[in-house]
């Protein structure tokens, strides 16, 4: 699985590394080295956010959905916006692991591990919202699942929300498996390096007694490859299904055939932005410049530029279709987005998602971690605004002027949103403390010594 590119690209690992040093440096973060204070600070921030989330959700369960800004006609507010946003972010991880693996992009090896972790945590945050946004979560928790019951009632399989349930839970499960399978050999490494017995035992159990036998490696790689092959269409399907939540509806601004592709592109866009948002600080914090080289950052910049352009194409064509359809409802929807009461959101969206990423055309910017971080932040915001546009501005003025309305979030909406960000941060900081954030065994394959002299395998 080592790529031999025709041109000589900058290496994905700095020279001078041996199996030992690679193992030392990555596994060391987990096992030996004491952690910088910044890690404790990050964890604390995340913890506080999670507590805020806990409070907001508790109050929600006590009082009801009415504590949010939702109303008729805008029945969905922050909850669904955040859901789609998080799901989008959750796409890069599996995508990097799966698609780049199939495309034999060896540079993925340094980023796939924490990208996958990011996916899991993002999907956890996302999965929270469809549940709590319902009026009776304690029932929604299991009534949306097909289980035999005395009333003989089943879910309504024509509803995109049911599709969501299946898509998101499948995605979470498969991503988890993918992630764990990738972890097993590294867990074995940790098992063998751990000093204290309990830790040893723990990693021993988790690594399932992995011993690196050639026959195991052979099946392992085949299974991993197949998983990647399965995950790739899965990743694409998940955001397609999410986009069905809107396209199946008949509301102008929702009922659009262009949504699936441009939702997927948007998801990859958002996902890579978030990977950069995490990678740049991590790299500095744990001195991983050797493994997260400039080539990684630049490639991610390129991917963002491309997907960003696809998203821009989506915006343009939404407007074009509205005009071309000569459907007054569609036309008014587009006009209302641009010049209606919510106009600032639309133009901010254009700035964040379309204008700013154009900077990435310049190599000097693509290779400046600071600039990449800066731009990725814009994209994170922009993608959230895009979901706001789709959910709120489409609903607040639909067909009958008599029922037009106005939506504004309450403090509980905002607390819930930032609460999930806190939860995400907390989970992520815990992850980098207890598990190797870069795949050690795959990094070993990048070490020059891993090459078999005279070997002819690919």
């Amino acid at each position, binding site marked *: 699985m080592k790529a031999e590119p025709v041109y000589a690209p900058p290496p994905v690992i700095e020279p001078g590394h041996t199996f030992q040093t690679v193992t030392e440096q990555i596994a060391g973060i987990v096992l030996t080295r004491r952690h910088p204070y910044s890690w404790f600070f990050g964890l604390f921030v995340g913890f506080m956010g999670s507590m805020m989330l806990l409070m907001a959700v508790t109050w929600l369960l006590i*009082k*009801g*959905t*009415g*504590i949010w*800004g*939702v*109303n*008729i*006609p*805008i*029945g*969905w507010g922050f909850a669904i916006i955040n859901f789609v946003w998080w799901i989008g972010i959750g796409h890069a991880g599996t995508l990097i692991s799966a698609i780049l693996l199939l495309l034999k992009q060896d540079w993925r090896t340094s980023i796939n591990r924490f990208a996958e972790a990011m996916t899991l945590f993002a999907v956890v945050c996302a999965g929270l919202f469809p549940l709590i*946004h*319902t*009026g*009776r*979560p304690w*029932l*929604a928790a299991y*009534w*949306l699942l097909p289980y035999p019951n005395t009333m003989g*009632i*089943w*879910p*309504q399989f*024509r*509803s*995109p*929300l*049911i599709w969501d*349930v299946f898509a998101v839970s499948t995605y979470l499960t498969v991503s988890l498996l993918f992630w764990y399978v990738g972890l097993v050999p590294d867990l074995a490494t940790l098992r063998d390096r751990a000093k204290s017995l309990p830790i040893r035992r723990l990693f021993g159990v988790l690594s399932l007694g992995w011993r690196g036998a050639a026959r195991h490696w052979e099946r392992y790689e085949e299974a991993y490859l197949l998983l990647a092959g399965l995950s790739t269409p899965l990743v694409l399907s998940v955001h397609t299904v999410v986009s069905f*939540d809107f396209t*199946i*509806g*008949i*509301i102008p601004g929702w009922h659009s055939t262009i949504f699936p592709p441009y939702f997927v592109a948007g998801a990859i866009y958002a996902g890579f932005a978030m990977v950069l948002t995490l990678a740049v600080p991590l790299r500095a914090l744990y001195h991983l410049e050797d493994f997260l080289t400039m080539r990684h950052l630049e490639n991610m910049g390129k991917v963002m530029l491309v997907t960003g352009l696809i998203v821009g194409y989506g915006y343009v064509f939404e407007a074009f279709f509205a005009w071309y359809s000569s459907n*007054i*409802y569609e036309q*008014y929807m587009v006009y209302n987005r641009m010049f209606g009461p919510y106009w600032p959101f639309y133009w901010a969206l254009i700035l964040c998602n379309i204008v700013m990423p154009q900077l990435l055309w310049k190599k000097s910017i693509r290779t400046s971690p600071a600039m990449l971080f800066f731009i990725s932040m814009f994209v994170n915001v922009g993608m959230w605004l895009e979901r706001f546009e789709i959910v709120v501005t489409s*609903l607040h003025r*639909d*067909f*009958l*002027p*008599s*029922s*037009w*309305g*106005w939506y504004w979030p309450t403090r509980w909406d905002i607390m819930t949103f930032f609460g999930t960000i806190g939860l995400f941060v907390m989970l992520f900081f815990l992850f980098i403390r207890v598990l190797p954030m870069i795949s050690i065994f795959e990094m070993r394959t990048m070490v020059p010594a891993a090459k078999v002299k005279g070997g002819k395998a690919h």
Partner: protein
Amino acid sequence: MNSTSIKSRLAGSHGRVYWRSLGELADTPEFREYLHREFPEQASEWNDPKGRRQFLKLMSASLALAGVGACTKQPTEEIVPYVRQPEDLVPGRPLFFASAIPFSGVAHPVLVESHMGHPTKIEGNPEHQASLGATDTFTQAAILGLYDPDRAGAITNRGEIKPWGLFLSAMLSAGSQQKGRQGGGLRFLSGPITSPSMAEVMASVLAAFPQAKWHQYDPMSSDGARAAALAEGAVGDPIYHFDKADVVVTLDADFLTCGPGSVRYQKDFATQRRITEERKEMSRLYAIESTPTLTGAKADHRLAMKASEIEGFGRQLAGAVGAPAPAGPSARATDPASVIGKWVAAISKDLQAHRGRSLVIAGDYQPASVHTLARSINQALGNVGSTVTYGPSVEAGPTDHAASLADLVRAMDAGQVEVLVMLGGLNPVYSAPVDLKFADKLKKVNLSVYHGLYVDETAFLCHWNVPDAHPLESWGDARSFDGTVTITQPLIAPLYDGHSAVEVLTTFTSQPDRRGNAILKDHWTRAFAGGPWTIRSADGQPFKNFDAFWRRALHDGFIRGTAIADGGPATPLSVMPAVPAAGAPAPTTQQAATPPVTPPPATTTPPQSAAAGAQGGLELIFRPDPTVWDGRFSNNGWLQELPKPLTKVTWDATAWVNPQLARERGLEDGDVIELRYRGNTARMPIFRVPGHPQQSVTVFFGYGRQKAGNVGNAPKNAEAFNAFLLRTSDAPWFGNGLEIAKTGERYPLAATQEHHVMEGRAPVRVATLEEYRKDPKIIEEQGETPPRTLTMYPEYKYEGYKWGMAIDIGSCTGCSACTIACVAENNIPIVGKEEVAMGREMHWIRVDHYFAGTEDDNTVEAYHQPVPCMQCENAPCELVCPVAATTHSSEGLNDMVYNRCVGTRYCSNNCPYKVRRFNFLLYQDWDTQSLYPMRNPDVSVRSRGVMEKCTYCVQRINQARIDAKREDRAIRDGEVLTACQQVCPSDAIVFGNLNDPNSQVSKLKLQERNYGVLETLNTRPRTTYLAVLRNPNPELEPASRSTTEH
């Protein structure tokens, strides 16, 4: 407070009277504690919403509890249900009783639905000419008024609870003191009385106390009309017959929604304008008005002018049709080139072309001179006797109310009033003209007795408070607008120790402490024996005995042959002789002692002329609030939350101004202005209303209440939004000299509809009669309907019944009775102002309102469109529900399964009509026990987190299905009436089986003006609309005007 102790005491004391004698419970400390909360030191708590809510629960939990005990009790006296077999009360089957809900003394005939002894719903009395089955919004909401936990709970003297006996003795001693001086210090204040029995009691009281005086005051009654009528002698009260009128001209008259006759008038007017296969003609309505009204909204032509200019216009019109006009100010412009001239010319021409088929109506809020003008025009056109008949008043002893009250206050000020008895919850402290300073003068009265449903502003200043009995709790009679004597029979024993006005009044007669039933029956026994009435049975034959007559009267709810049209007399203010011994000749009424009616006071206020008040400044126009009237319904949550016509604002009063004026003064909707008028000031948030006269401001009564109850009390920042602060006795309805100033404050208004323009989407389709006659396709062409074949899927077959609805928005007046009826029928909660402001009102059927036409105030058109669930056959809501909580029934109903709903709100998002409602919070009041018996047991009460919506009153369909099955037949057309359909005064809503080609609804849907809203989405709505047809006068139709903006 802890209510259980009271409960236990209640339980301890048994027998059917325990709920009557709350006073005896008063010695429990908790109860005293509760009672003290009713007094002003707690006012602060009342005004803070949270506190109010808590308090509401507290007090209801306590006092209402006493009522709940009573709810299952039938009154002891015999009452007769409407159904043929009264005795068999089948559990689960409602009984209907005919009764009446008086409004300003005039009866609104009703049928009350009673479930196991709980009145739950009010319908119109279909056999009664004043109703024909319909009611107005106030009557619908009366059911909530009955169960209102804030009602006055007990007889109190200076805050101390007293039993009825003590009150009785107090009145007797007061009476005996007054006896000495012929009752010189004894005054009664009441609203107009149309009840023959009460009039007689009043007469006997006045006979017993010759010097005593009876004053009448109703803040919203029309002294102008009354004065004009009195001037005509005995026969001055007009009754209109719109079913005969082809051309109608209103002079500032809102006959469709205001006044006791409005329900019947709506019916006749709608019938006269409905285009069907048979009828191709429709009447034409010209509205000359100041404040835009729903009548003006229906008009084919509406001319806006200052209220003070109406008289001038009327005078000119009179001149044009050659009617003698009394001297007075002439019109603004006389040359025919001017707008006025043009209109006068066109209208008079139209009127003369329809002599005897036309009608001119003067508005209640116009001075006597305008009423006189209208009458003389009608006479000149030969309309009298055909489209309008003038007859005696249904009020006993009609008099000038403003003068009568002024007279009383003068006497109070002079210290001549020793005993003042105020009957019927008038609340003059709040509603009397500000210049009379009623509150101050009231302090000079030695003994003041207040009788009303609430402990309101006036009650707080009176010595004795006697709770009124709600019409649904008391016996009585009253006359409807057409004069028919209508019987009020109690559906339930008084919940709160209430006594009807007549029961209070009898304490001053020779036989005190008679119950309402005794008084009523005694009166009619004698009236049956002989009196001014001609009592005949339905077939015109006299009844064989009193019992037959009485049973019939209770069964029907009214006494036939007593209408003015049938020769019914003016309500006699006289005492009929006792029934003679058998054989002796019955003496005639003439021999009865006729006591003196209060003479019109010497210093009566000058009849208001158009030039009333100071010149210059703006014109101030007063109007009763469309939903809470003069504040008497302030504590009725249903009415508070009912969107007010044209503005759709709820829970607040607004000052209406023309957008032009608002632009000049830099005002936006919701800007609080200060109104300075004749030395008085008030504040109000403004609302811009197209078609409002440019130089006038309209303010509405009924707000700024401070002792209305927990629902109606104004918050601190809205206490000044009280139009009564500006009203002076010399200009009750309008006057010049208003100055307005922007305060810079903004006041949040909660409107259920923000956007009143159709944006070219034509939810309301309009055509003129000619256009429609020329090419009926003009309606269809205003929208686009995809062909039925345009679908992948096979058609779904509906065997058996296939329910559908057709709504004729040509007939709809926007009166919103349907909304209230739906609320009452389907246990729909009120959510409060804050929630409405967030767009969370729960009404299952809303009345959309759109403005159309041009900027010019005289061509502004307003359209109303009731929007229930469309019950789409391809329902977008069903497709997206993940748990199948909303599905299609085999009869095509879009069912909502509350128990299954998890509340994703996806269905509502996907509903193009946005007719679904969601319980975002726990809106339903689970705590207030007095509301339990009010709820319709056939409709489940929804809780938090559940979606709900119109079900076509599926409970009524199923009830009919059960009946039909038992009789082994199909459900007949018209057997199922939805609540909105049943209440609609203009029969705009028709529901029925679409599989039956002969059903009324199927026929309507065959009409070419039938269309579905947003059909282009292929939702296939079962609810369709009949387009509006307008009948403009070609001479006035501006050339450059599209019928509606598409």
